[in-house]
């Protein structure tokens, strides 16, 4: 059977991990925001801005890692706008989030036209190359899938552990989670809910932008407007799928990516000839929705998610 051959091929798993990487960055970013009590719907636009900023920085002569840093700073800037409006001003997180997505997308378009007024097809950069990890990359199947990736992919996996540790093992993580559960409890300890939430949104938005930059600097080597293509919205679903836990969110991202990699390959089998290709394009989303229904039924939503906190109000 074809599908078994696909599932046992190293290239399939390598592709799945590659497709999952940007999702991991952005899902972690969204997860941090939501754990602190802020829904960040700016994610889609921030990923577009990050994809452009990183690529543009490298195209203008910066190194790859400085390019990643530039993308992160741009993301944090949009995060600052989002958190200023939603946290101290307490505006609707839905409206502000969609506003930030539109703002980030359109200012990216504007910046692109300013920077490259006469270009018809976007220039290419020297993207990140895979790092073969000695010994580990020689393991059959797992080696090529997990240990022959680009450094940004390794960074994404490391960050899952780091975010987990910070959230569950440090006083800062506890304060952050408490801000998303009951901000009054945080304020009663003399901690600043505003500071914690704004910080979480700014850092989270930085990670979303790095997720975007992965697309232009690691997965491909150029920038297209359609390239983010709803990945931000997928990440919001992945946070729910992962029940607001970094490890489960990672699992969700890999699962979604595997469906995506699978459908591309199944399209090329004899089976794919008989079925309209749109059905295949649809499958990762349908399966995600089904998985979401199964996985998130007993999830504990942060109790104060989307609840603005005003000091002195009861």
């Amino acid at each position: 059977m074809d599908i078994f051959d696909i599932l046992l091929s190293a290239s399939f798993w390598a592709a799945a991990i590659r497709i999952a990487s940007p999702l991991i960055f952005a899902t972690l970013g969204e997860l941090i925001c939501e754990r602190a009590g802020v829904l960040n719907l700016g994610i889609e636009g921030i990923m577009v801005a990050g994809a452009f900023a990183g690529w543009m920085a490298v195209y203008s002569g910066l190194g790859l890692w400085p390019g990643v840093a530039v993308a992160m700073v741009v993301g944090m800037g949009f995060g600052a706008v989002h958190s200023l409006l939603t946290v101290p001003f307490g505006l609707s997180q839905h409206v502000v989030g969609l506003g930030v997505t539109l703002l980030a997308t359109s200012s990216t378009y504007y910046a692109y036209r300013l920077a490259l007024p006469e270009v018809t097809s976007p220039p290419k950069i020297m993207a990140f190359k895979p790092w073969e990890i000695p010994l580990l990359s020689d393991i059959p199947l797992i080696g090529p899938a997990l240990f022959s990736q680009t450094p940004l992919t390794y960074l994404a996996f490391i960050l899952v552990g780091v975010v987990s540790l910070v959230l569950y093992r440090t006083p800062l993580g506890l304060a952050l989670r408490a801000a998303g559960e009951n901000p009054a409890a945080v304020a009663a300890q003399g901690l600043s809910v505003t500071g914690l939430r704004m910080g979480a949104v700014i850092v989270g938005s930085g990670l979303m932008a790095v997720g975007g930059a992965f697309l232009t600097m690691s997965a491909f080597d150029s920038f297209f407007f359609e390239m983010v293509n709803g990945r931000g919205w997928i990440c919001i679903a992945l946070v729910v799928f992962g029940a607001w836990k970094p490890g489960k969110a990672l699992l969700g991202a890999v699962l979604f990516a595997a469906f995506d990699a699978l459908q591309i390959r199944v399209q090329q089998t004899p089976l794919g000839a008989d079925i309209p290709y749109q059905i295949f394009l649809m499958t990762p989303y349908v399966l995600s929705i089904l998985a979401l229904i199964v996985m998130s039924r007993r999830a504990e939503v942060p109790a104060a998610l989307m609840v603005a906190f005003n000091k002195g109000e009861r």
Partner: protein
Amino acid sequence: MTGADTAQVVLRLDRITKRFGALTANDAVSLDLRRGEVVALLGENGAGKTTLMNILFGQYTADEGQVMVMGRALPPGNPRAALEAGVGMVHQHFTLADNLTVLDNVTLGTEPLWRWRSDTAAARAKIAKLSADFHLAVDPDARVGSLTVGERQRVEILKALYREARILILDEPTAVLTPQETDDLFATLREAVAKGLSIVFISHKLHEVMDIAHRVVILHHGKVVAEMATTDTDRHALAAAMVGSEVSAPRVAPGTPGAPLLQLHAVTTPDQGSAPGLKSVTLSLRAGQITGLAGVSGNGQAALADLIAGLSVPASGRLDLGEADLAQWSPRAAVEHGIARIPEDRHKTGTIADFSLTENAILESYHKPPMSRAGWMNWPRAEAETQAIIKGYDIRCPGPDTRIRLLSGGNMQKLILGRVLEANPCIILANQPVRGLDIGAVNYVHEQLLKARDRGAAVLLISEDLDEIMALSDVIHVMSEGRLSPEFARGTMTPAALGVWMAGHGFDEGLAHAS
């Protein structure tokens, strides 16, 4: 317990004044708290207790005066200052995060934010020691959301003690407890006082104040109107000082029960999440009688109230309203059968905050004549009706066009009472009708309920306040985990005996008895 004058003053509020526009919320309020002493801060709603505590905790800045802890002035407007000086507060509405564990809640904010690991082993050891020293048994790994109200309060006290608090401020700590839990709390507090802690006990329950406090400070309209040792006073004098005049609770004469107007026969309803449904409840509400329903909240009272109000239907068993059984049971059917509802939460389900008094007054009658005809509202009629309610029920407000959000709790409740009673209902479902009201308003609401009873209405009074239940009810039931106790006649039960039922004991024997 204290050598009064010689003992060290640990907390001194010195001539605190706070104004909000034209309103003076605290007018030169002074208070001394000595080591090992319990001072009760007594006052009606709006007397300025909360403002005073918010100043102490840096949420507000005082216009005049200062706060001294252990002889040192606290910097104004800094929430951490009071905590660091050793003052801990247990708020009336707990400031706990339900999805976090007890350990997380207790340690939150106690370590510097920027360090790589939390020292959970040390925290556990400290919590275990405090639990043992103060008889505050809680499992540090339990989710707070799964704890009972009494346990949550213990977590709050643990939180304060964990921060080395020497002064505890308890805001209405017994409002949510059963009598037994209150006894446990008082045992813990006495233990704490014996160990040299000092306590400010904010309350309006006079017998508890007499029970636990050494001194009482009474606030009225933002001023300290009296300060006395509990040994030199009694409940009556306290109540008089609190409201500024002698209180007269309504005199309750026994009712004259008539025919049953509403009966439940072995009704069972499904559980709603963590709130239990009814478990084979049999109950009859008779005309001219107040039936009191005691119990700790969350034990099925909501399920019973929803059922009678038409918000749910029995899963099994029968609901009998005098006439034929009901095929269609809905809130509107309930209203049409003469059931009037004073909802538990007047803000959430009793009123619409941004609607005017008029609009709120006709919420249950807007759909039929005379308030509307052929689909058109008759606003002049509605407004006249509202004017009559405002006058008849002494609602203090600028007029019927006022948004109800701007009214005090007492005035809001009076409007609901007016809406309910003007329809001459035969059954009144009064769910926590006086929660959060001051004594004046409480007496008013109680008088109106008694009047309705004497007119021949059947009243179901649901309350967590045993004093209220015992004072008004002709018969009493207790609810625990969705089960209903047998009926107890007026005067046959002591609070302690009811407390046993509230804690869930006695039901099995009770059932055996019934069968």
